[in-house]
């Protein structure tokens, strides 16, 4: 893939958030992914020079004896959160509008990598499901830091193919999730079979924390075509010649209906829904999403 995963600018932005507002990012991520078994154990993380207000019981007396300075032990919570990133890599996700930019799949993989990075950084177990019609590729969740390169390695190799089959992907994930988990679905939701989108919300009934990133290209959202065009389906639907101006109003109504259906089903099932435009800054999308999760927690 030409576009590097985890764009340095994006990572730098996210990193800035961690560095500048640790309380917000770490605490937020911690709060958002609060484990149902919170407080079972903590692990020592690092020392910090004592400052007024720190708890005296956390002073490392051994270090004082060696260095003649007061250091305070800092601990990190140990988590057992399991997260699944479900990436729709069907052929329709390969669409890129005439303007230069990321295809939907490229955008979704970057977004998935960013999420994986954030999760791994807070030591959550991250799993990956690549859905490509009949084919499903699965990387089981792991919590250690060395798992992240494995995730990146798979994402980098993903190519769009096959049809969108949300039901099959949901069934697969449901099978793999044995206990409560966070599930992130990244898809254009172009599965027009009845109840296809509703199947995603079934995962929420299994007590999982479900988020849908509805990835769409601005040309799909706005349909700004002017000249007569022969549209060719990416998943074998055939082709059609139309004057886009003649059907624009009707198309926009259909698109709005699609989005509104997904949004309504998500709201109804307490599933977080995010529209991910491929021309929108990803950091803002993530921050908005995390903020939304914090509010709903």
């Amino acid at each position, binding site marked *: 893939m030409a576009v590097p995963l985890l764009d340095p600018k994006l990572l730098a932005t996210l990193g800035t958030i961690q560095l500048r507002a640790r309380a917000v990012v770490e605490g937020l991520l911690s709060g958002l992914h609060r484990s149902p078994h919170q407080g079972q154990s903590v692990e020592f993380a690092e020392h910090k020079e004592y400052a007024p207000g720190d708890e005296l019981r956390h002073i490392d007396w051994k270090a004082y004896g060696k260095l003649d300075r007061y250091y305070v032990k800092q601990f990190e919570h140990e988590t057992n959160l399991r997260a699944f990133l479900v990436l729709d890599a069907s052929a*329709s996700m390969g669409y890129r509008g005439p303007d230069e930019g990321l295809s939907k799949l490229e955008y979704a993989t970057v977004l998935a990598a960013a999420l994986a990075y954030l999760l791994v950084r807070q030591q959550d177990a991250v799993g990956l499901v690549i859905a490509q019609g009949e084919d499903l590729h699965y990387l089981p969740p792991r919590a250690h830091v060395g798992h992240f390169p494995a995730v990146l390695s798979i994402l980098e190799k993903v190519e769009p193919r096959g049809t969108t089959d949300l039901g099959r992907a949901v069934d697969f994930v449901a099978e793999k999730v044995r206990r409560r988990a966070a599930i992130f679905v990244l898809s254009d939701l172009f599965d*027009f079979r009845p109840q296809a989108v509703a199947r995603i919300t079934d995962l929420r009934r299994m007590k999982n924390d479900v988020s849908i990133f509805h990835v769409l290209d601005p040309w799909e959202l706005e349909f700004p075509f002017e000249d007569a065009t022969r*549209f*060719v389906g990416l998943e074998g639907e055939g082709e059609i*010649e139309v004057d886009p101006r003649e*059907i624009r109003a009707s198309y926009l109504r259909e698109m709005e209906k699609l989005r509104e259906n997904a949004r309504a089903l998500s709201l109804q099932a307490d599933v977080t829904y995010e529209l991910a435009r491929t021309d929108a800054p990803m950091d803002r999308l993530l921050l908005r999403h995390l903020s939304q999760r914090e509010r709903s927690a």
Partner: protein
Amino acid sequence: MSVSFAHPWLAWGALLALLPILIHLLQRRRPRPHPFAALELVLRSQRENVRRIRLKRLLLLLARTALLLFVPLAIARPQFAAPAAASATAEGPAAIAIVLDASLSMRWGGGSVFENARKDARRVLADRLAEEPVTVVVCDGRPREIEPPSFDRGRARRTIDEAEAGYLEADLTACVQAAAQALAESPLPAKRIFVATDLAASGWRLDAPPPTVRTEEGEVQPEVVVLDAARGEAMPNLAITELRVEPAPELGARGRAITFTVQNFGDEEVRDRVAELFVGEELVAKTFVDVPAGGAATKRLLHRFPTGGIYVGAVRLSPDALPEDDERTFVAHVPRDLRVLVANGAPSPVRYRDEAFFVETALRSGGASPIEARTVDADHLARQPLDPFDALLLLNVRAPDRALAERIADFVRGGGGLFFALGDQVDADAYNEVFGDLLPLALHVPKTVGKEGSEEGGALFSTFDFDHPILGIFSGPALEGLSTVRTRRYFLLRPGEGARVLATFDDGAPALVEKEIGSGRVMLFASTVDRDWSDWAIQPSFLPAMRQMTSYLARTLDERRAASVVLGERVDLAWSDEAPPTAILDPEGRELEHAVAEGGVQLVAERPGIHRARVGDGATQPFFTAHVSPRESDTRRLERSELQALLGGAKAQVAEAPTDGRRKSAPLWSLLLAVGLLTFFAEGLLQRK
């Protein structure tokens, strides 16, 4: 019916209509492909709109084709041309005169007939070729200077637009002939006259020759096209054609009979038409009128006026399609009560021998007289105050003393009237001495021309001044009662100046003379007003003459002149006051042009109704009433064949609407342009949908 083009080569531009079709065919190549993920949504939208899209595409193709077809065609100025089979006019450009009838009858139907005529005139003007000069003649009864034909279409159109149907009578025969004369100014050999009129027969002189145009080749007959503004419909009309206001003695001195004639100019009998008599704005009498078809009916309405004075009034019919002749106004002069002092110079216990008997009887008789006569013996005259009286009659009175004579002279100079009747009590020298200039002419000597008691002999009245208000009523058959008066003895009068001789005896001697002194008037009869010297007192003319004379002396006779004039006619109206009126106002209060002539004014009234005169002090008083010409009320129409024959037979044509023989065409370009514009906007609208 065929289509012709003013600019045929521009019609080739219609081939542009092929462009949309060509573009459509060229665009049938496959558009470039575009892989698209949301194809399902595109398919759904296409299915939802497929019928609308097809219809829109079809309409767009039609609109574009129509736009590119109609606009070039419109620029080529096409027109439908009808065959000119029914035309009597020739092809080719001609000098054109448009005669627009603007007479009263054109106001029929609330002005709809005139508006038809105006439309016809506009259409004739619009249909002219660029090389055809045009003149417009508005025939409304007013004298107009007719301009030669010109190419100034704007001026011709303004003349048509500004024309209004008036109240006057128009002579269409004269107008057409005047138009023909105007056409002589154009060098074009063809001459054509269009006449937009209602075909009312009253507007044409049927005995006149057809119009001719004097050209270098001699007199030629122009083509005449008469456009029937009434569109072949009859124009029934009911009109008041005559109205008289006369004394009605049965109602007393101030009773008046208003007699009016209603004529029916329609083909159907009119029944129970309401006629109302108004005095001022008060309805005082009402009647119903039945008028046979083409006939007339006369009605008489009575009204007693409460006091003397000048009254204005009107008789009004319930209005029909031409309301201007459904009302006739009048000015009624109701004389005020007069007080007359009669000085009896030869009283007698026997009434018929009494000097004043016949005069008293004449002034009081009938009960309808507004004259109150008081008789005193001449001897008691000196004790009588004169101011309460309007006139003093001295009947065979001896010459009074100077004091009384002076009082009488003052009375006359102050506006009183004085009448001398002579007799055996009169001494010529004494009269001349005492009355002096008060006498119209000095007395000379009595002259006897017949024997007393004899029925034969005696002088007859010979010459009369019928222009005088007193004698004006005796013109015609009524003269007999005056011309048979026999006078056996009368005073000869000395020649003099300042007197007006109203009547003479057959020997030329003045019989009745008049003189104005100061503000008063003096009259003298050279004989007696009893039967001593003359038998006038027992002649039928005596009573009206005495009453006229008394009223004249008291200056109430002038007020009785209630002129009624016909609109459009130049008339001379008498004006008795010394100072002429400062202005004459028409019924709408606008000043009417008039010329002051000796003893009156000369004017032409143009609006029906009461006209008022403004006198020196700024006050106005009713002066005369004007009414429309009964000829214009006659809306019976000429047969087309009659009119065609009148205007030159085969050279004339009568049509209900402008159907110019040469240009029986309907312009099509404006319609095409309108359709082109519509399709242009429709195309834009479709594009946005």
